[in-house]
């Protein structure tokens, strides 16, 4: 250590292994990017067999047929499919969150019947594949052709819903299937959040004279949100992609729209790339939204909230500037 107060040059540890690994990774990434944006000497062809004769036509000189992707990216079929995907995502998540929180509260109830009902729900909907659930809901009219609202265990009914007569559309089947399945997962997430809130918070609210419902709504849920939001963000992103399963039961969402087009013109890869790009775009937007939501609900839990990207940029710029200025000042001081 320096004892006379003079600055001593510090030599940091050199991580040579890391540098080599980074260089290898960069080369591999560069190769991949190059191939994605490369052109083929022969170009891409699309072929189909028309009355026994194989007919091909040139598609694009790009390996990934970027011009075709660009063409279909904003066609009305794809955009319409995107809207259906977004609708399905939002509505299914809404069902999932509301029902999931309800089930979580039931699960934590002191009433045995309520908590075991909640447990059974989660057991069933988490225990069967979501694709199977979608198919079952799509075909639910086989089991329950008519749903009536009336007095249980009697023949008295006030309203009938005929599921067979087109009342239960593929979209509704997908919404119910995805929503109920999501509720099972959301209930576990919400339960973790509710448990994470300190018992003392509940006691304090109770001792102020709040009812159980007020305690839950004003004190427990807002604090549970901090734990619930990050995995829920994951669930939204996961749901966005899971909605593609709805194409199996005839919902024309993003993937459904893409596959409808390529079924007609055989441009399989360009359309799958188009759909993938749209999924990526929406996922990116959702991730940004998640960051700000998490920041909002971190209120009070952290002494200083995490910086937004803009704030971080400003801090870094200021840091560099101040370093620059102090260095100049010290140089001038030496002079």
């Amino acid at each position, binding site marked *: 250590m320096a004892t006379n107060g003079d600055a001593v040059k510090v030599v940091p540890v050199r991580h040579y292994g890391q540098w080599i690994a980074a260089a290898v990774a960069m080369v591999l990434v560069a190769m991949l990017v190059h191939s994605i944006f490369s052109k083929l000497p022969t170009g891409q062809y699309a072929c189909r067999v028309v009355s026994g004769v194989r007919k091909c036509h040139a598609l694009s000189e790009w390996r990934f047929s970027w011009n075709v992707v660009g063409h279909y990216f904003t066609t009305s079929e794809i955009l319409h499919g995107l809207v259906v995907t977004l609708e399905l995502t939002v509505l299914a998540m809404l069902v999932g969150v509301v029902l999931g929180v309800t089930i979580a509260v039931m699960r934590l109830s002191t009433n045995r019947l309520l908590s075991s009902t909640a447990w059974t729900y989660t057991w069933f909907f988490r225990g069967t594949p979501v694709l199977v659930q979608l198919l079952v809901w799509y075909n639910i009219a086989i089991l329950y052709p008519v749903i009536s609202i009336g007095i249980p265990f009697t023949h008295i009914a006030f309203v009938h819903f005929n599921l067979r007569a087109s009342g239960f559309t593929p979209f509704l089947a997908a919404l119910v299937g995805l929503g109920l399945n999501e509720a099972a997962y959301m209930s576990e997430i919400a339960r973790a959040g509710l448990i994470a809130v300190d018992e*003392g918070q509940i006691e304090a609210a109770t001792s102020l*004279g709040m*009812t159980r419902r007020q305690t839950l709504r004003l004190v427990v849920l807002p604090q549970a949100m901090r734990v619930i939001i990050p995995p829920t963000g994951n669930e939204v992103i996961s749901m966005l992609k899971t909605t593609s399963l709805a194409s199996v039961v005839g919902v024309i969402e993003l993937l459904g729209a893409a596959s409808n087009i390529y079924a007609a013109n055989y441009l399989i890869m360009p359309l799958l790339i188009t759909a993938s790009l749209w999924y990526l775009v929406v996922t990116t937007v959702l991730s940004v939204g998640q960051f700000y939501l998490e920041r909002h609900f971190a209120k009070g839990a952290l002494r200083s909230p995490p910086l937004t990207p803009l704030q971080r940029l400003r801090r870094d710029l200021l840091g560099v500037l101040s370093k620059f200025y102090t260095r100049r000042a010290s140089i001038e001081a030496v002079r």
Partner: protein
Amino acid sequence: MSGPMVEARGVHKSYAGVEVLRGVDLTVVRGEVTCLIGPSGSGKSTLLRCINHLEKHDAGELRVDGELVGYEARGGKLYERNDKQICAERASIGMVFQRFNLFQHFTVLENITIGQVKVKGVDPEAAREKARELLTRVGLEQKEKAYPSQLSGGQQQRVAIARALAMEPKLMLFDEPTSALDPELVGEVLDVMKDLALSGMTMIVVTHEMNFAREVANTLYFLDGGIIEESGHPREILAAPKSERLQSFLSKVL
């Protein structure tokens, strides 16, 4: 409005077969400060929590302000009170916890207004005004916009006292209010409590601060093994403890 504020006769409470309170008798006079001392596990906190019905006592009679806690006596039967009645009971009893338990997601001001607005239905602006008054009283008028995590333990506990006072309670319960504090912060909380005692608030304080008990309390109860071992005027029983258990307890803490 006469008679004692709190009256306990033979109060019992067990958790999972373990008897924590084994017939406690206690009387708290209006406007007086009662301190509960005793080794850990002696049932002090449990007794406090039974008084505002955070815990249900199993047997015995417990009255606050002349009313049975948690039950209503009608026609020779005891009817359990419903949630709404119990909430109303609790709203009139302030409680201060060992670990403060301020609402972490609310600012200091919101912590003090939430109970007034949501439980008592006070107009938000009036609630804020009252909250600022109380903050001045506990010496934290500068901190209304802070979150609890930004305050020291002593400051948090003073906010917690203000939060309880905002409900205009007839009785204040303190559950080891200074036990979780750094030694240098204990004084600021005890000062607030002394002021409160001087203003005539009826207080029950579970504490290990013998000096506070000696100076401020009107009555001191020593609990051990779920029963009151000794009680009386603090100066007298602290100076000349009669029971052996109190003697050995005091030799450890003083």
